[in-house]
């Protein structure tokens, strides 16, 4: 299995766009997040298992359009009985999989099939509004949503309000195109690729 990151050939470190004479807080930071364990948990429709009993790295499963998180792990709601987990604890799935009965859950490791772009800065919402039809201003940290960004299917994870930070997740195969769309939207404001 390759460890080459999805944006290896396109994500260049440096300052781009109109960054001159701008106060540091108004310069967006764009980074690629990789090396995380990512897996999807689907509870079958005929399952009556009570998921509120499950704790994954100490976290309960979030309700609709929400996420739960700690310093290592984030769990996102991505549909009814459907969650996306990403964690820097790379053996988390191995350690916790005994909580999930095969008759109730399907768990799929998709660590190598996602691109994650992290945006940070006061103008994050403006960048998102350029390509995403969601009511971005109404979303806060702890929210997550599946949507589109300039026609590409994405999941947006709202991580923090101060500083404003979001992660945009897309399919790995759309990663370069998504990166181009996001950085193109950032150019107007100036961004620091880190």
């Amino acid at each position: 299995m390759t460890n080459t990151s999805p944006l290896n050939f396109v994500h260049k470190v440096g300052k781009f766009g109109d960054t001159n004479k701008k106060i540091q807080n108004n310069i967006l930071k764009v980074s690629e997040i990789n090396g995380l364990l990512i897996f999807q948990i689907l509870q079958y429709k005929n399952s009556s298992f009570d998921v509120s009993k499950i704790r994954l790295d100490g976290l309960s499963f979030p309700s609709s359009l929400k996420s739960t998180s700690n310093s290592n792990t984030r769990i996102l709601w991505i549909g009814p009985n459907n969650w996306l987990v990403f964690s820097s604890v790379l053996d988390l799935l191995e350690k916790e999989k005994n909580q999930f009965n095969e008759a109730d859950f399907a768990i799929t490791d998709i660590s190598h099939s996602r691109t994650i772009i992290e945006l940070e800065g006061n103008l994050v919402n403006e960048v998102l509004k350029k390509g995403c039809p969601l009511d971005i201003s109404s979303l806060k940290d702890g929210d997550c949503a599946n949507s589109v960004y300039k026609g590409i299917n994405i999941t947006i994870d709202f991580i923090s309000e101060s500083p404003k930070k979001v992660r945009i997740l897309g399919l790995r195969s759309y990663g370069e195109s998504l990166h181009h769309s996001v950085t193109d939207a950032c150019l107007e404001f100036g961004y620091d690729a880190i």
Partner: protein
Amino acid sequence: MLYIKCPFCGYRSQKEFAYGGDGTIKRPELNQEISDEKWNEFVYLRKSPNGKHIELWHHVAGCRQWFKVQRDTVTHEIFQTTKMNEEIK
């Protein structure tokens, strides 16, 4: 542009959805004899109403769930959306 209320995610832009056709079509029961005419009707023939219409929509860029929508085909007004196992009143 339509603004559609997904029963799971709330109001979202039409950009996130895919149209799935007439929501009133029932598949013929399994293991029952069916004439070619009835099968042809099920597979191909659709009404094209001028007014209220029950449709299927797929929240393809969202929660990936199918649901029912009652929409006016003339004004595009959406009256109701429900989960697949619920009836439109």
